[in-house]
């Protein structure tokens, strides 16, 4: 017992050392048939809530004792939910590399928000960059314990031992021991607090294109998503919610609903989205089709209380009016007003962007079950198990430890699954009916009920010198605040820095700057969308830089480089982009190319987009050439994949209708009215990765997005002379 307590304390310190706070718990077990080779491993409900086997060496690493003929199974925990960004490979790889195992030797389990594993969130392009050092140290610590155990057993110095493929080797004597032979002794050793990390030159997994272990399951229908979960006795629910978000439920008539075969319960539902709560009526049935039919038969009366007056045309006009206000200073340098007054050439412009939906392909869903009135088990696709824990505890007044969470593969996240509204709602319904319930949103629910990416409008003023270079620059963002739309009070005369994201971080050397923010109230809930506000403000910012270049009569690439005299990552990225995009090579007639870059919290990328004028007058996006700056790369193929995806998502946001409101409700409901990019619209994409080392690791999932819209609009300007200042742009009607 004493030994265990010591070990626990030791491990707690270990976690703190790594910056991963929390208490170490015993950890998990692979799902059934984990003995199969990893390439075919069942990608079922891999969670750590099942009975554990094996000994925990350090958190995240569990090794079973070997049995004759079988090396002990090695399990690595993945704390970052996989939503297609590749964390099921890239995160365990950090541990595996240092541990001395290959990924096809291990079983990977997804954690469910347990304190032992620190913050378990996939978001902010933070998974690899946030885990890179801590999880390598985890693997290295486990390795050192195993090596120490072997050296003691053999009576040889530690320095003479090496590891590979899950065994410790002693070269001089030719002896080897599998980790499973050593784990019993190793697990009783103190956890090294400062293990020696591998020399990156010796990396076997990291930095090399790697096949992701979950892909075979994803091509054979065996990868389990939240929507696929079935638990014994489970009922299915569909929830009718007001199309005008925020309306209060007055009454509902379920007489026709109750006539639908299979309908079991009709109950009031509550959707808690951060600080806001929305009413609904849940139809619970013994199959999902019955729940849907029952829902359609409901007659619900809502009190809109004026919320149904909201419409996008009027709101956009309101933002244009607000643009006349001075707003609050986000960032200043020099004396903008004087510099602008004195500048021989002045220009200004106004840019507008729309609200858009996340629309992951897997609609929101959650299975909830309350085995006791104060404990709950959840199965869901979520980016944020850690946040589910705390939100569930707050919502229901239960202990976080009594919230068991099973995280499945996420059928897309893009920020939508950082929110817990669909989880809390399912938990309420399951609690009310007293049975396990799976709630599945329809595509219409998903499209119309938010939280949405908010729009931002941007007002610019610039003064150019006699040489055409900028002396004064102002970017004023006029927008709702994500935080305020989620019910958090907005402090008057403050800047919501999320809404001015990146605008004061660009490396262009401009002596006099005055960036500002004007807050606009919005009744519709908004949220974090892949690359957040950079997806809208970068469009405006990098298009206006192009306008300045044009006004100065300069090539837009030359113009940017002329503002980057000092060494910077931006300068390196653009220098590379100029070369790989063959910027200086003429294009065919009717083609145009545009450039844009963006640096923000998630990282840095720059794109050249090429477009061509079609015979029918439409514009075609031909090619996107991207340079993404990472410092260090874990899986280059995944970086390429993520960047290809970011580009597709950005083209959708720039060229498809987006979400508009009339009479308080979204006018789009499904993929017919809220279309997404399709394969015939996908340009050729070329991704160049800069991984030149250095102390900073930059993010992967988001940086590919922001430069797309401005580079596209700049390309269209070059091809047609038309300056796009409002998104979405309709590529079929530009010329």
């Amino acid at each position: 017992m004493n030994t265990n307590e010591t070990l626990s304390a030791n491990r707690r310190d270990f976690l703190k050392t790594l910056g991963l706070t929390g208490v170490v718990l015993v950890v998990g077990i692979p799902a059934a048939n984990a003995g199969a080779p990893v390439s075919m491993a069942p990608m079922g409900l891999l969670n750590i809530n099942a009975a554990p086997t094996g000994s925990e060496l350090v958190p995240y690493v569990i090794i079973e004792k070997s049995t004759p003929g079988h090396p002990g199974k090695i399990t690595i925990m993945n704390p970052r939910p996989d939503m297609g960004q590749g964390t099921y490979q890239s995160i365990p790889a950090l541990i595996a590399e240092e541990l001395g195992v290959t990924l096809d030797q291990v079983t990977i389990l997804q954690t469910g928000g347990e304190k032992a594993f620190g913050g378990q969130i996939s978001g902010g392009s933070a998974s690899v960059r946030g885990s890179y050092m801590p999880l390598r140290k985890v693997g290295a610590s486990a390795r050192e314990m195993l090596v120490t155990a072997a050296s003691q057993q053999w009576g040889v110095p530690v320095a003479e031992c090496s590891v590979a493929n899950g065994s410790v080797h002693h070269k001089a004597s030719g002896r080897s021991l599998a980790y499973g032979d050593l784990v019993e002794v190793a697990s009783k050793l103190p956890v090294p607090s400062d293990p020696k990390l591998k020399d990156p030159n010796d990396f076997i997994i990291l930095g090399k294109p790697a096949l992701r272990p979950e892909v075979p399951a994803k091509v054979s229908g065996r990868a389990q998503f939240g929507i696929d979960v079935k638990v014994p006795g489970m009922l299915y629910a569909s929830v009718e919610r007001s199309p005008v978000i925020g309306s209060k439920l007055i009454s509902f008539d379920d007489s026709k609903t109750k006539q639908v075969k299979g309908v079991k319960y009709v109950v009031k539902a509550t959707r808690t989205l951060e600080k806001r709560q929305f009413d609904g009526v849940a139809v619970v049935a013994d199959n999902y089709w019955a729940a849907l039919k029952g829902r359609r038969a409901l007659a619900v009366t809502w009190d809109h209380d004026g919320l149904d007056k909201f419409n996008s045309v009027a709101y956009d006009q309101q933002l244009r009016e607000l643009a006349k206000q001075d707003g609050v200073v986000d960032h200043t340098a020099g004396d903008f007003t004087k510099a602008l007054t004195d500048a021989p050439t002045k220009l200004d412009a106004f840019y507008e962007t729309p609200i858009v939906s996340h629309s992951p392909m897997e609609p929101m869903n959650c299975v909830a079950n309350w085995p006791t009135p104060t404990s709950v088990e959840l199965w869901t696709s979520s980016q944020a198990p850690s946040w589910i824990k705390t939100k569930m505890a707050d919502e229901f007044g239960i202990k976080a430890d009594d919230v068991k969470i099973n995280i499945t593969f996420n059928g897309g996240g893009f920020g939508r699954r950082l929110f817990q509204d669909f989880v809390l709602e399912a938990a309420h319904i399951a609690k009310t009916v007293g049975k396990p319930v799976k709630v599945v949103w329809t595509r219409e629910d998903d499209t119309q009920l938010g939280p949405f990416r908010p729009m931002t409008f941007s007002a610019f003023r610039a003064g150019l010198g006699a040489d055409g270079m900028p002396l004064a620059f102002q970017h004023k963002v006029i927008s709702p605040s994500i935080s305020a739309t989620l019910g958090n009070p907005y402090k008057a005369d403050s800047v919501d820095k999320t809404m001015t994201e990146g605008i004061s971080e660009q490396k262009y050397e401009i002596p006099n700057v005055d960036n500002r923010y004007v807050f606009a109230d919005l009744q519709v809930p908004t949220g974090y969308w892949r690359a957040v506000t950079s997806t809208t403000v970068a469009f405006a910012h990098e298009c206006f830089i192009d306008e300045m270049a044009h006004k100065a009569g300069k090539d837009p690439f030359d113009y940017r480089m002329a503002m980057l005299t000092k060494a910077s990552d931006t300068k390196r990225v653009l220098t590379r982009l100029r070369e790989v995009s063959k910027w200086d090579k003429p294009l065919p007639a009717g083609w145009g190319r545009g450039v844009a870059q963006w640096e923000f919290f998630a990282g840095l990328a720059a794109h050249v987009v090429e477009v061509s004028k079609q015979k029918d007058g439409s514009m075609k996006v031909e090619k996107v050439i991207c340079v993404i700056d990472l410092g260090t790369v874990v899986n280059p193929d995944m970086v390429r994949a993520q960047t290809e995806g970011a580009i597709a998502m950005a083209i959708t946001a720039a060229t498809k209708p987006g979400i508009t409101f009339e009479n308080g409700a979204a006018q789009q409901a499904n993929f017919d009215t809220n279309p997404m990019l399709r394969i015939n619209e996908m340009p050729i994409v070329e991704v160049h990765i800069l991984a030149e080392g250095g102390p900073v690791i930059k993010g992967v999932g988001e940086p590919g997005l922001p430069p797309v819209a401005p580079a596209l609009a700049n390309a269209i300007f070059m091809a047609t002379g038309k300056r796009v200042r409002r998104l979405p742009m309709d590529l079929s009607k530009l010329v």
Partner: protein
Amino acid sequence: MASIKITINNQPRTLDVEPDMPLLWAIRDVVGLTGTKFGCGIAQCGACTVHLDGSPIRSCSVPVSAVAGQKITTIEGISKNADHPVQKAWIAHQVPQCGYCQSGQIMSAVALLKTTPKPSDGDIDNAMQGNICRCGTYTRIREAIHTASAEMGTTNKLPKTGAKVGKR
């Protein structure tokens, strides 16, 4: 309720369901094959694509009663070990990101290669336009279909045309 007989992945089934239940929900919730996905419910995204007697259909928009007595193939039915040439190509090109739409993508691709063994990019665009991938894996889907096509062409040693027979 009605008793509806259908064959799914070569296995005859008798389903006790409402006749208007979309085939999708019968496959997922009643039969328990969850590889076929719900994406939109209105035949706009292709996540629910299955084969009806070899041709791709959107199972979300077909009442189960309409396919009574017929043969349905789902993603689970195209191979036992994820080793259909299309699946192998999907793995080789690491096509899936989140993976949710990929069952539908693969079912559309398998059907395409059946009717058009050597598809051009244009053929691929036409056949695959009904399948949305929000992760944007389109470039890799295109490449993987070409790879699968090449593999299926070389592994199929049987002559395809009379002319080739003549050359032998």
